[in-house]
């Protein structure tokens, strides 16, 4: 569905800037070269907060930056494969743009692969951006991948409330993994992830 970016209801000024980016692409500009300049030209201002539903996708608009939305508009034109280049060969800004935009233009299989790749990302901000504040992980990951993702979120200390649909995807294997992590932390005298008991209690119900 082209024009998905308009569902974010950008303000007139932002929409105008995005239209000029699209015009540049239509005029033959190479997205791989232009993409790096999107944060400079479009800016990093956050969009107004609010839950959005786009088909099966649930997301929080307020974590999106203006340049992320511009990247989505461009990737809708150039395709997910070219968009993936942004993640593979981009700087932090470009990679964040790709993490926001790609899940909206990828097939379920592509998104699974993408999240698997993101799981090993060292930059916690990028890892988080893919796994929280949307239902991307909950809707496409199989149980093993989901469990690995939640374990890493717990490991780095992301609040449980930001993991969309965690309750629906919780399972006894994950419960055991989180209990192990808690035991390891306790033994080391380190703080235990605050979500641990909430998840374990939900499994008892």
């Amino acid at each position, binding site marked *: 569905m082209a024009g998905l970016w308009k569902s974010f209801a950008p303000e007139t000024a932002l929409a105008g800037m995005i239209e000029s980016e699209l015009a540049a692409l239509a005029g033959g500009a*190479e997205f791989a070269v232009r*993409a790096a300049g999107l944060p400079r030209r479009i800016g990093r201002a956050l969009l107004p907060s609010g839950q959005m539903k786009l088909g099966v996708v649930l997301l929080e608009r307020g974590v999106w930056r203006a340049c992320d939305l511009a990247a989505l508009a461009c990737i809708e034109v150039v395709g997910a494969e070219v968009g993936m280049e942004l993640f593979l060969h981009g*700087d932090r800004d470009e990679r964040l743009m790709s993490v926001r935009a790609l899940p909206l233009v990828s097939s379920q299989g592509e998104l699974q692969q993408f999240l698997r790749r993101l799981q090993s990302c060292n930059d916690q901000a990028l890892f988080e*951006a893919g796994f929280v504040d949307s239902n991307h992980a909950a809707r496409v990951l199989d149980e093993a991948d989901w469990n690995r993702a939640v374990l890493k979120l717990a490991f780095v200390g992301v609040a449980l409330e930001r993991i969309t649909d965690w309750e629906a995807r919780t399972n006894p294997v994950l419960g055991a993994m989180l209990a192990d992590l808690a035991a390891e932390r306790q033994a080391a005298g380190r703080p235990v992830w605050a979500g641990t008991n909430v998840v374990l209690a939900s499994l008892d119900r």
Partner: protein
Amino acid sequence: MNTIPIFEPHAHMISRVTDDYERMSAAGVKVVLEPAFWLGQPRTSVGSFIDYFDTLIGFERYRASQFGIHHVCAMALNPREANDPGVRDAVLKLLPRYLEKGGVVAVGELGLDEMTSTEEACFEVQVELAKKHSLPLLVHTPHRNKRQGFVRCFELLKHSGFPLEQVLLDHGNEETIAITMGTGVLQGFSIYPNTKMDPPRMVALLKKYGTERISINSACDWGISDPLSVPKTVALMREAGFEEASIRKLVWDTPAEFFSASGRVNRAEWVCPPEAAPFSATGTTIARGGGKVPGSCC
């Protein structure tokens, strides 16, 4: 105690361990510029260049940020590998994409090494790229046959019509400064522990010529080199009685001005620690364990 912020304008941090970042941070280094160069031995495919460039703009910047240091880059095909027809053209083709990246603040290291005609051709192509992407140049001069290579680099630059004020001509010595003094070029000096230019020789040179249009760096890499050679030179300058203002001009004002002139980066942000931390639910950045909001120190 060193209260002057330090801009290290030439460090190959990919070759250094985290202890180096820690020591540099403790010594007052706020920004490092990592120019793309070779990896100690030739690369055999363009893919190795892509991964190297991606590491410079990606993980290396992230690694530096964990020590409160801003990491920026210069991107180029280095003169050594410019001589390799197996990778040369493909790497030049890659550059426009990397020269648009946010943290890329110069084209470099381009330059001459063995002074071949191919090196000169790649030099000229990359000067044109710098014009197109509105970036300054960081130019490597040969370590052997220094004087002749230095003169040749300078001739190529003058012939190109590139504004000399936007050129850092690096790895200078007591001989080359006579060629460039008063030309507008930013004269770079790489300070090594015991070969080439060392801190006492550098201080002697600064006493003679002053600190105007001069910049010093460690050029630290895989070889015998010292990532602290700039702060060590600062300490020697203090002992020698240099004014704080002229030390600051040398190690902060001049390089910060030079590499921010393109407008690609906001120089004011360089004195605050960089963002290494996650984006919170509201999109603002918080340090792990609850740090301060970016910009709050400014």
